[in-house]
């Protein structure tokens, strides 16, 4: 009976997830951060997280992405394929190694969501993706910049902007599916690259409050225009 219930329970939960969120997160496991970093440079992680494919079909998908321009070293490719085949495979994934002790995430780990576009050290990738290092500091010093930074990560930004003298015109997605705590962690991780004196760390409560009033990426852009950035 248990053998039936487990996969079925997963299936039901999967369906529930699809209906309720239409937004996905990846299961915890070795390689997760690498998958986030590599896939999210081009698309929503939901496109990956909702698939359940055999190893050979995942291999075909990765090959297709390589044709689309995905750059991977041999080790990265193997690690990504292992993760996908294990945690997003046709068989139920193994239980987490230490289920009793909840995993304490760090801001740097949550930043894996951003690496694909903004680079491991926040250096950016012009002309598509602006740098964060240097830029975050300018934002945090501007009046209203602290709120803007939170909202841009939560809801995304869309439209032409200038960052440190260079023009960017891309589409930044919102990361509303991350938990309040994860968002606060990653915002503080960004702030660690250059916060003005007297900076108050972001808190999960602050993120929660920001969810009360949803904004479109264009509205977030309008907020940015009002900051009076140099």
């Amino acid at each position: 009976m248990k053998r039936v219930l487990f996969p079925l329970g997963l299936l039901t939960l999967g369906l529930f997830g699809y209906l309720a969120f239409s937004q996905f997160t990846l299961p915890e496991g070795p390689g997760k951060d690498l998958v986030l970093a590599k896939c999210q440079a081009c698309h929503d992680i939901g496109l990956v997280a909702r698939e359940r494919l055999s190893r050979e079909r995942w291999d075909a998908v990765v090959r297709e992405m390589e044709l689309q321009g995905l750059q991977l070293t041999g080790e990265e490719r193997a690690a990504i394929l292992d993760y996908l085949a294990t945690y997003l495979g046709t068989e139920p994934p193994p239980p987490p190694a230490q289920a009793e002790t909840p995993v304490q995430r760090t801001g740097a780990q949550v930043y894996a969501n951003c690496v694909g576009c903004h680079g491991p050290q926040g250096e950016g990738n012009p002309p598509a993706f602006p740098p964060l290092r240097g830029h975050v500091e300018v934002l945090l010093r501007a009046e209203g910049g602290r709120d803007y930074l939170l909202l841009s990560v939560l809801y995304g930004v869309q439209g032409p902007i200038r960052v440190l003298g260079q023009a960017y015109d891309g589409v930044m997605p919102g990361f509303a599916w991350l938990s309040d705590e994860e968002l606060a962690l990653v915002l503080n991780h960004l702030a660690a690259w250059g916060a003005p004196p007297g900076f108050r760390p972001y808190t999960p409560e602050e993120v929660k409050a920001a969810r009360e009033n949803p904004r479109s990426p264009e509205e977030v852009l309008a907020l940015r225009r009002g900051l009076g950035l140099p």
Partner: protein
Amino acid sequence: MTNLNRRTTLKLMGLGAAFLAAGGRGLAQQAPTADQLVRGKNPRLLVLSQRPVVLETPYDLLVANPQRTPKELFFIRNNVDLPGFNTVEGASLEGWQVEVGGQVSQPFTFEARELLALPQHEVTMVLQCSGNGRSFFQPRASGNPWGRGGMGNATFRGVRLKDLLEAKGVRLGERAFYITAHASRQGGAPEFVRSVPIHALENALLALSMNGEPLPAVHGGPVRLVFPGYFGVNNVKWIQKIEFTEAENTTAEQMPRYRVPTIMGANVPFLPQEPGRPYPYTFQNSRPNWLVTINSFIFAPLEGQRVEGPLVRVEGVAFNDGIAPIVAVEVSTNGGRSWSQARLDRREKGFGWVGWRASLFLRPGEHEVMVRAVDALGRTQPLDGNLAWNERGYEWNGVMRVKFTVA
């Protein structure tokens, strides 16, 4: 897997429902709605992906507009997002340039604005994502899990590509076998290129408007190269360059993406691929998702509906690639053992969907109705759409079934 009894199923369904009721509300606000992603869209559209933007029309909203699918409801399958184009408003024609080259007597560049001065032509057509119906394939195919809302019927208006060539005094070269279209790369957008056979030139349209309004920016405005009868992916949005080429282009959108297996030189509609297995796609053993497969949909009754009997009106739409007229739509209420003919709204060739209706005499209780279309070439739909299983889940056209109750 061992058999599952009714009680267990009910328990699990209850569990799912409880989660939905408890979790759905609290978490729903986290995922952006369609109108937050694309200005002017109906908030009920299903968000299949935020980036690139992929929105599916809920089936009940699709059938509520049986003539034309309005821009607020029309599905979106973007491979590329252009910054600032996520709106149903039109985009500016000013300064939009399109290059035409390749196997032609004289390459040229034209401005979108110039098209307004040329003869305008209108076509009503079904635009359908080649992944529409993908979620019915078993085992699951990869990609956005479309139900049946990855399609719409719209009237496009604009200038025929061949009229433009004529106006410019340009002739095609002898080796112009394909039309290869490139989307704009503004704002650092990734490359998007598709090739279609030169046959498509016959009806190719540089569309400037949709359903009588400026072509919505998110649907390819200001100019979209529309090929009536071809699957959505071929109708390149934000057209920037049109090349007449000797061969299909070789970017990922043409190979291995948007293809299904075939046997070269054999006259079979598809090569049944072993479900669940990958396929070594090459230009020789597969073909692109070009012409739409014949298909039909039941618009009423809807799944699970309760209708008055004993005379029940069943209706819906059918379409094909427009090469031959649809000559029959047949409905069955006994699992396909016998079929009766529905009345068709028209019997001429066309690219738009054709309405059909049938009155069935049904006793009270539960019923299942099935529908299939047949065209003048004898093409029809498989009873089991899974026969055409392919790993990316393209071109589903299995017979649609709807369960409903007669009061």
